[in-house]
C-alpha cells in the first residue's frame, strides 16, 4: 500500500462512503472523490496499460492533464468508454474497467509486447505489414490496438441539451486569477459568467492551507458571494471546449456518469482565460512507471482528496516552488527527498511500481516520484481565438503574445506563476486596462537530452512515443512538427499533447540544431478535453435533423392499410393491404397494367415561374427548348448544372406566356428551388420573373392505366377529355374547386394527374377509389410505381445517373446539337470529355426468364487477368411483373453503341452474362400511352 487517505485535508465528505468496482474487485471511496483519487487512496497504482507496448501505467496528473488513467465505466447497464479516471466523479455503484488490458491491468497477457519493443518503432506497423496487403493484417492489429470498447447501443435517453446563453464577460477558470477577475468585472457592472471544470471553485488555492490568514475555502466562498451579489453567475463542472469564429465559445457542463452533459453556446464581449498550467514530464529512462506523477498531482491529491500519494517521496524538478509542496507532503506524514534533476542522468527502478530513483549514479530509495520539468500554460483557447505565442526562455515554454483584443489570458495560463502578481493582472483584464508586464521568471532548462537516447524515455505516455521515436522521425526526415506528430502519433492521444508537446518539440529542435520557436507548434484545435459525441449531436437526430414531410392524404392511406415508408424525405405509401411486400407489389403492378393505378403524387415538386420574362427564364434553365412550348402543353426536360451534368428531370407545363409550372423530383424540390433562384438573381431582372414553390399547397391524384380515361370521365373534373391529348394541361373543377388535369406519361400508360388544393384532395381521392373499383382499379404505392417506371426506362436522377452523367448519355442528345439559345450548362456539353465515345451511357440489361435479379452495383467487366477492367455498373434492378423477367438499368461505357451485345457481369467474385438492350423494356413502341 503506497497511496493512502489521511485524516485531514481535502474537499471530500468522509462521512459519506461510496463503493464501486475496479477490474472485478470492490473498492471504497467517499463523496467528493474522483475514480482516480478513490483508487489511489485504496493503494491501487496500476490503472491501465499503454496503447502500443502494454506497459503498466498509473496516474500522472490529478485532473484533465492525465494521459494514462483511461477507463471504461459501466453504470445503469450502459458502458461509457474512455473516461478519464482523474476527472470522473465517483458515485455509488460504478463498475470501472481498465482499458487496453486483458484480463486486467495488473496481469496483462499482451504485456509480452513490451519485450518486443525494439522491433516496434514509429511507423512499424505500416512498414512491416505493407506486403502483401495491409488489409490482411489490419483486423488483428486493430483488435490489439485501440483503447476503450465502444457501446454500439443507441441511448435514447442520453441527449445533451444545447443551449444559447449570454454574458458580457466570460471568465474561464475559477482559480485564484479567475475569481479575482470575475469579482472585479462583476463589481464594475459587467454581466459576468465564470466557469470552472472542477466541482469546487478555487483552483490551486487549496494546496496552500497555511499561508493565508483564513482557510482557502473561506476565501473562495467570499469571492463567489461577491460575484453573485454583484449579479454575476458561476457554473462549476463546466469546461470551455472551444473558441470559434466571431467570438463564439462553447462550454460544457458535466453532470456526472449516466447523465448527458449540457452545452451552452455564447458570444461574450470579453473573454478572460484563466485556465492555469500543467506540469511537463521530465524525459528520462523509464519515466512512465506507475508511481511517477507530476508535482502538482501530488499536491492536488492531497489538497482536494486528502490522499497522500506515497510514503517515501522523491521530488525531481526545476520548479522554484517545490519546497513548498515538499513541506505540505511532510506535514501530511511523508518522507520527502528534494532532488536536482540537473545533477545527472536519471532512471527509475522497479517495473510494476517505483522502487527507487537512480540519479547521477546514486540510488535513492522511494516508492513515489513527483516530477516536473516546469509548467506549461494552457493556451489552447487563446490559440483557438487566433492568438499568437512566444517562446519564453526563462519559463522554458510558450506564452501568449499578440492576439484578439477581446480575449485576455491571465494567471498561470499567461505564464504568471507568482501568486502575488495575480491581483494586478486579473484587475487589468477585468477592467480592460493595459496588462502589467510579465515578470522575470527563470528556471533551469530541463529538456530531453538527444545525445542520450539510451533506455526508453517517454515523451507521449498514452501513445507510447519515446525519445528514440522522435530521433527516428528526424532521421527519416519527418522534421516538420505536423509530420512529426503524424509519423510518431506524438500529441495525438486523448490529452492532445498537453503533457508531451513541449518535450517533443524541444527534442526535434535539438536534433535539427534549431531553437524551439523555429520548430513551431502544431495547431491547437477544439475540443479542449475529450467530450462525448452527444455534446455535438444534442437533439439533432433522426427526424429532428430531417423532419419527415407528410402527405395531406396520409390518413386516407392509413385507412386503406398502407405500409408507409420514407421516399426522398416524404412519408409515402409503399404498398397497400395486408399482403407481404412481394405479393402486394406484384398485385399492384398487374392492376396498373390491366386496369388502372390510383396514386398520390403530391410529393412531386410543383414550382411556378411567373412574370413577363418567365418564358425566357425557363428556356434558359432547361436543357430542352422551352421557348416554343404552347399554352396548355407540357414538355419533359432536364435541368443541368453549369458543368453540364444532369441535375433534375421532370415535366413542365405552360399555362400561358407568363406562367409555367415546373414539376420536379419529389426529393429535390428544395434544391431545384435554390438552383432556379440562383439563376433568376444572377442572369435575369428579378422584377420581371418570380419563382414560387407551391409543392405544399397542392395535392395530386394520378390515375394511370388502360381504364384511366373512363375513371376520370366519371369523376367529371373536365367536361370532356377529347381535347386533352398526351402532354397537355387543362383547368377544370372538382366539386366547385379549381382543379388542374395534366396528361403525362407516369407509368407508360395513359395517365391523368389531377391536382386540387389540399383541402379538397381527400374527397377527390375517396371518389377516385370508389369510381375506380368497378373498373378493377385501386391504390398503388411507391414500390410498384418504381417497378412500372423502370419497365419503361424512366430514370431516377441520382440513382440512374452519377456525377459525370450528361443528358446525351441518357439518349437525349438533340438539344445539345440543335438548341441555339443559351442555357445553363450548354458550353460544358461540348468539351473533349463530353464528346468522348466511351462515356458511361444508360442502357438496359436483360437476362433470361427465371434467372435471378442482377444486383445493383454489380460491375460490367471486360478482359481477363491484368487487363480486366470495369465498363460500368448496374444502377437499378427489378422483377418486371409485366415481362415476367428481371429488368435492369446500367451505366456502361459506350453502351448506346453496343445494343444486343452480350456482356459479363461480375459481382462479389461470381460472374454472369447479360445482354445490352434499350433502357425501355416494356411497350417499346409506346402504343399504350394513348390507348
Amino acid at each position, binding site marked *: 500500500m503506497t497511496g493512502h487517505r489521511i485524516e485531514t485535508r481535502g474537499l471530500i465528505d468522509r462521512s459519506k462512503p461510496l463503493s464501486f468496482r475496479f477490474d472485478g474487485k470492490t473498492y471504497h471511496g467517499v463523496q467528493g472523490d474522483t475514480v482516480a483519487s478513490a483508487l489511489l487512496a485504496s493503494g491501487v497504482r496500476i490503472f491501465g496499460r499503454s496503447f502500443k507496448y502494454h506497459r503498466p501505467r498509473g496516474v500522472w496528473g490529478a485532473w484533465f492533464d492525465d494521459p494514462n488513467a483511461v477507463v471504461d465505466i459501466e453504470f445503469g447497464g450502459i458502458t461509457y468508454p474512455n473516461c478519464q479516471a482523474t476527472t470522473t466523479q465517483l458515485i455509488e455503484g460504478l463498475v470501472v474497467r481498465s482499458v487496453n488490458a486483458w484480463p486486467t491491468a495488473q496481469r496483462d497477457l499482451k504485456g509480452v509486447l513490451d519485450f518486443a519493443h525494439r522491433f516496434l518503432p514509429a511507423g512499424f506497423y505500416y512498414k512491416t505489414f505493407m506486403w502483401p496487403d495491409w488489409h490482411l493484417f489490419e483486423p488483428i492489429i486493430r483488435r490489439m490496438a485501440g483503447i476503450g470498447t465502444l457501446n454500439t447501443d443507441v441511448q435514447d435517453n442520453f441527449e445533451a441539451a444545447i443551449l444559447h446563453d449570454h454574458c458580457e464577460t466570460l471568465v474561464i477558470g475559477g482559480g485564484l486569477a479567475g475569481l479575482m477577475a470575475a469579482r472585479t468585472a462583476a463589481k464594475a457592472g459587467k454581466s459576468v459568467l465564470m466557469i470552472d471544470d472542477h466541482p469546487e471553485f478555487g483552483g490551486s488555492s487549496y494546496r496552500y492551507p497555511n499561508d493565508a490568514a483564513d482557510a482557502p475555502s473561506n476565501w473562495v466562498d467570499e469571492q463567489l458571494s461577491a460575484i453573485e451579489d454583484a449579479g454575476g453567475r458561476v457554473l462549476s463542472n463546466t469546461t470551455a471546449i472551444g473558441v470559434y469564429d466571431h467570438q463564439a465559445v462553447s462550454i460544457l457542463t458535466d453532470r456526472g456518469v449516466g447523465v448527458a452533459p449540457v452545452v451552452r453556446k455564447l458570444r461574450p464581449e470579453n473573454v478572460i482565460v484563466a485556465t492555469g498550467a500543467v506540469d511537463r514530464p521530465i524525459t528520462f529512462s523509464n519515466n512512465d512507471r506507475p508511481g511517477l506523477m507530476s508535482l502538482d498531482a501530488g499536491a492536488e491529491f492531497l489538497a482536494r482528496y486528502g490522499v497522500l500519494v506515497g510514503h517515501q517521496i522523491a521530488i525531481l524538478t526545476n520548479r522554484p516552488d517545490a519546497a513548498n509542496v515538499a513541506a505540505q507532503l511532510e506535514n501530511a506524514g511523508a518522507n520527502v527527498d528534494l532532488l536536482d534533476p540537473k545533477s545527472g542522468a536519471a532512471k527509475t527502478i522497479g517495473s510494476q511500481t517505483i522502487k527507487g530513483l537512480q540519479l547521477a549514479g546514486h540510488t535513492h530509495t522511494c516508492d513515489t516520484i513527483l516530477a516536473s520539468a516546469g509548467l506549461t500554460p494552457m493556451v489552447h483557447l487563446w490559440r483557438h481565438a487566433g492568438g499568437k505565442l512566444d517562446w519564453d526562455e526563462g519559463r522554458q515554454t510558450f506564452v501568449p503574445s499578440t492576439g484578439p483584443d477581446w480575449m485576455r489570458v491571465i494567471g498561470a495560463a499567461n505564464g504568471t506563476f507568482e501568486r502575488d502578481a495575480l491581483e494586478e493582472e486579473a484587475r487589468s483584464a477585468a477592467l480592460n486596462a493595459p496588462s502589467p508586464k510579465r515578470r522575470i521568471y527563470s528556471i533551469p532548462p530541463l529538456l530531453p537530452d538527444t545525445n542520450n537516447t539510451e533506455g526508453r524515455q517517454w515523451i507521449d505516455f498514452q501513445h507510447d512515443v519515446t525519445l528514440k521515436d522522435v530521433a527516428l522521425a528526424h532521421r527519416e526526415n519527418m522534421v516538420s512538427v505536423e509530420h512529426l506528430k503524424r509519423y510518431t502519433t506524438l500529441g495525438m492521444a486523448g490529452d492532445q499533447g498537453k503533457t508531451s508537446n513541449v518535450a517533443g518539440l524541444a527534442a526535434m529542435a535539438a536534433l535539427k540544431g534549431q531553437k524551439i520557436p523555429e520548430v513551431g507548434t502544431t495547431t491547437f484545435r477544439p475540443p479542449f478535453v475529450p467530450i462525448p459525441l452527444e455534446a455535438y449531436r444534442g437533439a439533432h437526430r433522426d427526424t429532428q435533423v430531417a423532419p419527415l414531410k407528410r402527405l395531406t392524404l396520409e390518413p386516407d392511406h392509413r385507412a386503406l392499410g398502407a405500409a408507409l415508408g420514407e421516399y426522398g424525405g416524404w412519408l409515402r405509401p409503399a404498398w397497400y393491404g395486408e399482403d407481404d411486400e412481394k405479393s402486394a407489389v406484384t398485385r399492384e403492378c398487374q392492376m396498373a397494367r390491366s386496369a388502372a393505378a390510383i396514386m398520390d403524387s403530391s410529393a412531386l415538386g410543383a414550382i411556378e415561374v411567373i412574370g413577363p420574362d418567365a418564358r425566357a427564364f425557363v428556356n434558359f434553365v432547361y436543357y430542352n427548348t422551352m421557348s416554343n412550348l404552347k399554352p396548355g402543353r407540357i414538355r419533359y426536360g432536364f435541368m443541368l448544372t453549369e458543368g453540364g451534368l444532369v441535375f433534375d428531370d421532370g415535366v413542365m407545363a405552360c399555362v400561358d406566356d407568363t406562367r409555367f409550372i415546373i414539376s420536379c423530383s419529389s426529393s429535390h424540390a428544395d434544391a431545384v428551388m435554390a438552383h432556379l433562384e440562383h439563376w433568376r438573381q444572377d*442572369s435575369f431582372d428579378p422584377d420581371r420573373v418570380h419563382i414560387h414553390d407551391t409543392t405544399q399547397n397542392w395535392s395530386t391524384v394520378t390515375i394511370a392505366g388502360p381504364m384511366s380515361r373512363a375513371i376520370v370521365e366519371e369523376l367529371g373534373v373536365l367536361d370532356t377529355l377529347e381535347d386533352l391529348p398526351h402532354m397537355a394541361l387543362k383547368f377544370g373543377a372538382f366539386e366547385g374547386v379549381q382543379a388542374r388535369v395534366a396528361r403525362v406519361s407516369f407509368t407508360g400508360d395513359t395517365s391523368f394527374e389531377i391536382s386540387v388544393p389540399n383541402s379538397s384532395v381527400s374527397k377527390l381521392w375517396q371518389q377516385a377509389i370508389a369510381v375506380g373499383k368497378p373498373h378493377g382499379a385501386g391504390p398503388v404505392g411507391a414500390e410498384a410505381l418504381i417497378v412500372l417506371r423502370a419497365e419503361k426506362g424512366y430514370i431516377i436522377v441520382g440513382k440512374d445517373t452519377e456525377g459525370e452523367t450528361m443528358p446525351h448519355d441518357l439518349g437525349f442528345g438533340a438539344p445539345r446539337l440543335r438548341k441555339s439559345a443559351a442555357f445553363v450548362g450548354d458550353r460544358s456539353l461540348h468539351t473533349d470529355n463530353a464528346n468522348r465515345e466511351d462515356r458511361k451511357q444508360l442502357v438496359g440489361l436483360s437476362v433470361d426468364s427465371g434467372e435471378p435479379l442482377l444486383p445493383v452495383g454489380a460491375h460490367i467487366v471486360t478482359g481477363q487477368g491484368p487487363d480486366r477492367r470495369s465498363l460500368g455498373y448496374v444502377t437499378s434492378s427489378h422483377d418486371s411483373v409485366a415481362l415476367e423477367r428481371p429488368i435492369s438499368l446500367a451505366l456502361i461505357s459506350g453502351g448506346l453503341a453496343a445494343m444486343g451485345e452480350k456482356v459479363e457481369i461480375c459481382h462479389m467474385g461470381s460472374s454472369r452474362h447479360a445482354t445490352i438492350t434499350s433502357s425501355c423494356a416494356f411497350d417499346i413502341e409506346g402504343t399504350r400511352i394513348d390507348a
Partner: protein
Amino acid sequence: MQRFPCPFCGLRDEREFRFAGEAGKTRPDTTQEVSDKEWANYLFFCKNAKGPTCEIWVHTTCQEYFVMERDSATMEVLDTTPMRKDVA
C-alpha cells in the same frame, strides 16, 4: 460559427447562408464561340485570395443574393451590399 449581416434581415448565423461564388465573374455569352480555356476559367478557377475578398452569398431563409466583402484570413466581415441596385 460565424455571423453575417444579411443586407435585408440583419445579423444572422452562418448556417443560414450559402456561398454562391466569387464576385465579379460574368457568364460568357454562350451563343458566341467560347474557348475551352475561357469556359474553364469561368467555371472552375477562383482567386481564392487570402485576406480581403469579395464574394456572392445567399441568405437561404430570405433567398436574396448579396455581395459580401470579408477577410478570408481573419474571418472579419467588412461589408455586405444587396445585388439589386434599386434597394441599395
